[in-house]
Structure formats: structure tokens, C-alpha cells
């Protein structure tokens, strides 16, 4: 019988064994998250634990900005007040014409027997901090699923579209900015109604308008708004302005660069729009066609 003397010091498994175990565990998690998005529940649980820490860290900044805003000069306030009054006056005029337009639009849609477009409701939120992941462009806001912020909802500021809610935690939400490399927004050129898709570049202040033929009717300064055909973004939100066009006949597509209309770095306040009503069902004819082969197979 073999005899092994008792070890002098209990040290547990070797260093390499421990590293391999945890590395393997991490790789499994990474694969499950990147490929199948299985980890959202666990992510939310950890997010809830982290929330109080995040609020604690936010306190110094809030106190500093509170003290700063307390010592604002009188003249600045007066100027600001004047500007706001002027803006309010202008907006009141626009609002009145808009109400008239809404009524007229509804009437025309009824005349044409078209589906009514439901206007999205919105909730104001504040940007807590910018995402620190250097591989993506994200911001975190202080409203979450407990404030009815849904995943996939569009987020705007006062000048245009900022992005889309990519993850909703109970009290915070993660917004993927339109400049994120993986974000695509279906847009329409205001001037001529041309439809296209805007891709994020991963850099601040630049968007790509891809897959447009070299001879496409697009000019510098063209305003791009959401087309609304994706069922995610409501139609008509300003997205970007075309800033540079390179037409090279050697390539099938033109290189078109745009600047985002919204200023993500300028404001702290954003609006989260509610998700649009779900798209109408497929027409019954198409469904029958799809279902038929399955049925016949089962019969046979």
C-alpha cells in the first residue's frame, strides 16, 4: 500500500489549476454572452448590486454642480430667461401650426383609409455617465425598467436622435449611441425622400451613409431623418446632416460621411420615447402559403 506523508502546508490546488478553472469559466460565460445572450439575467442581478455604489459615486458630482449652479451670476440668468422666453414664443407659434397639421393629417389619413400613426409617449432621463468600454459607444441613464424604459426604445435630445436603449436594468438603462459601430438607423433624405441606412463609425461626430450608388442624388448639407419603416424609431426624427461626399467611379458605392444632428456630448438630459405599436400581422395569404408545406408533410 502506498503511503504519502501529510503535506506540511495546505495550499489547495496549484496556481495554474486555479487559473485554468477560472479562465475556462470566463470563456464559457463569454461565449454564452456573445453568441446567445444568455447572461442578461445575471447581468441584471449584478447591476442591482452595483446600483447603490453608482449612486454613492454620483453624489460628489451632483453636489459640485449644485454649488456651481447656486453661484450663477444674475446677468447670466437674465440672459437665459430672455432667450427662453423668446424660444418659447417661437415654439408656441410652431405648436399651434403643428396642432393644425396633426388634425389635418388625421383627416387626410381617414379620407385615404390609412392606419392612424400612434405618437410615441416620452419620459425625461438624465445621463449618469459615459460607458467606459473603449470598443463601443454607450451612455448610462438614470431611468430603467421600473420607470417603464423598454429595451429597443429610441432616445432623443432636443435636436435629434441619440440612440437606442440596448439594456434596461431596474433603475438604470444602457443606451447604444448611433455612433456605435453596431448601430444602424434607417433614414430618409428630407429633400427627395430617398431611403438609406446610416451606420455608426465608432467615433464621436461621424456617421457613414453606406451602400448608396455613386450617382445617388445626395448633396452636402442634406438632412437625414428616420424613415420609420423599421418599427423601432418613430418617423421624422433628425439623425444626421451630410458633411462629405466622395464619388469615385472605381467603387460601386459613394463614400458619404455625416455628422449627427443630436449633441450627445453637450447635454445631460435626454428623452426616452416609448416603443411603437407592434407592426401589423402578416397578411393571411402569405401565412397560408408558409403553413401549407408543413401541413402536407404531416398528412403524408
Amino acid at each position: 500500500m502506498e503511503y504519502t506523508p501529510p503535506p506540511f502546508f495546505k495550499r489547495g490546488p496549484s496556481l495554474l489549476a486555479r487559473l485554468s478553472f477560472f479562465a475556462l469559466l470566463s470563456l464559457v460565460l463569454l461565449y454564452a454572452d456573445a453568441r446567445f445572450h444568455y447572461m442578461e439575467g445575471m447581468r441584471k442581478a449584478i447591476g442591482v448590486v452595483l446600483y447603490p455604489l453608482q449612486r454613492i459615486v454620483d453624489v460628489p458630482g451632483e453636489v459640485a454642480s449644485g454649488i456651481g449652479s447656486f453661484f450663477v451670476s444674475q446677468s447670466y440668468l437674465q440672459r437665459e430667461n430672455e432667450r427662453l422666453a423668446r424660444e418659447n414664443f417661437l415654439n408656441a407659434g410652431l405648436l399651434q401650426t403643428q396642432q393644425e397639421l396633426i388634425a389635418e393629417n388625421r383627416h387626410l389619413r381617414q379620407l385615404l383609409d390609412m392606419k392612424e400613426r400612434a405618437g410615441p409617449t416620452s419620459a425625461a432621463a438624465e445621463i449618469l455617465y459615459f460607458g467606459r468600454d473603449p470598443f463601443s459607444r454607450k451612455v448610462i441613464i438614470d431611468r430603467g425598467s421600473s420607470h417603464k424604459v423598454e429595451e429597443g426604445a429610441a432616445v432623443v435630445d432636443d435636436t435629434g436622435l441619440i440612440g437606442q436603449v440596448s439594456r434596461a436594468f431596474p433603475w438604470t438603462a444602457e443606451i447604444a449611441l448611433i455612433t456605435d459601430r453596431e448601430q444602424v438607423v434607417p433614414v430618409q433624405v428630407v429633400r427627395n425622400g430617398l431611403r438609406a441606412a446610416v451606420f455608426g463609425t465608432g467615433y464621436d461626430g461621424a456617421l457613414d451613409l453606406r451602400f448608396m450608388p455613386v450617382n445617388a442624388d445626395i448633396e452636402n448639407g442634406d438632412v437625414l431623418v428616420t424613415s420609420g419603416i423599421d418599427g423601432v424609431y418613430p418617423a421624422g426624427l433628425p439623425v444626421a446632416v451630410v458633411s462629405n461626399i466622395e464619388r469615385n467611379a472605381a467603387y460601386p458605392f459613394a463614400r458619404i460621411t455625416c455628422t449627427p444632428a443630436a449633441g450627445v456630448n453637450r447635454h445631460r438630459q435626454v428623452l426616452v420615447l416609448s416603443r411603437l405599436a407592434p407592426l401589423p400581422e402578416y397578411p393571411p395569404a402569405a401565412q397560408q402559403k408558409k403553413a401549407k408545406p408543413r401541413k402536407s408533410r404531416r398528412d403524408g
Partner: protein
Amino acid sequence: MMRGSGFSNLSTEEILLPVRPLYVALTLVAALLLNLMPLTGWVLVLRPDFVALTLLYWGINQPRKVGFLPVWLLGLAVDVAEGSLFGQHALAYSVMMFSAIALHRRVAMFGVRHQMLHVLAILLLMQVVVLAVRAAAGGEYPGWRYFVPSVIGALLWPVTRFLFRIPLRSRRDPDEV
């Protein structure tokens, strides 16, 4: 010459109080809070990974005090806070901890300046692991600025060492009999 300076450093090394696990946990929570600071612009680019730096300190100075499980869980917490892939920092911190514990006897022989070089190498290794994971997941190289936090972290090593040792200094005068 270098060897001599290393040994002289060893001989003047002060004797510190034993480290309590609660103190280690407190420093790690403080580091996580610093990591969660809401920052923007250039500060965000320069910001070192405080959690990694703290873990590295304990890995090099007290390799028996921090196990792999807390390190791994902290990595997951950092992943959630940053909104990155779930598990990338857990993996990177595990690799970092492994290299810190494997090298801790060697690093302790050097003076602070040479320790900084070791720290820089280990922090860069940690970031390269993250980069590799993101590259495998389809990410793109974010530019040289990506590695700036490691350099800043290595430059902060003497400060970290000094701060972490303040509560561990013996309050009694060693010359007192």
C-alpha cells in the same frame, strides 16, 4: 550596482502590521467606486483601472490574501458596470492575478522604479487579454490610446504602495524598549 540597490531596498523595508481580510475588501470596494466615477472626455481616456491596480498590489504583496473567486467576481462586476462582454474582465483579472502571484517573489526583490516596469508589463498583459477577447467577438482595435490606462496605472504604483501601507504601519516607535 542594481543588485546592490535591490538588497539595500530589502534591508530598509519597514516591518508592517499583518493585513486583515477586511482591509483588503475595503480597498477593493474603494477601487471599484473609483472605477465607477462618472467621467467624460480626456479624463476617461487617461483613467487607470483602479480595481486592477489594487488587485495587483495585493497579488504582489499578499498573494495568500486574495483568492481567485473574489477576483473573478470583481471582474464580472466591472463588466456589468462598463457594459462590455460578460466575462472579459473576469478572464483578464484572473490572468493578471496569476502572473502577479507567480512573479511576486521576484518583484519584491526590486526597488519601486523597477517594480513599476513589472506592473506595466502585467497591466499591459491584462489589456491584451481584453483586446484578444474583443477581437474574437468581432471588435476592432480602438487605437493606441487604449493602452494609456496601463501606463498611468504603472506610474501610480508608488502612490498605491504608499497609500496602502499607511494603515499597516506600526504605531509604536521601534526604538522604544
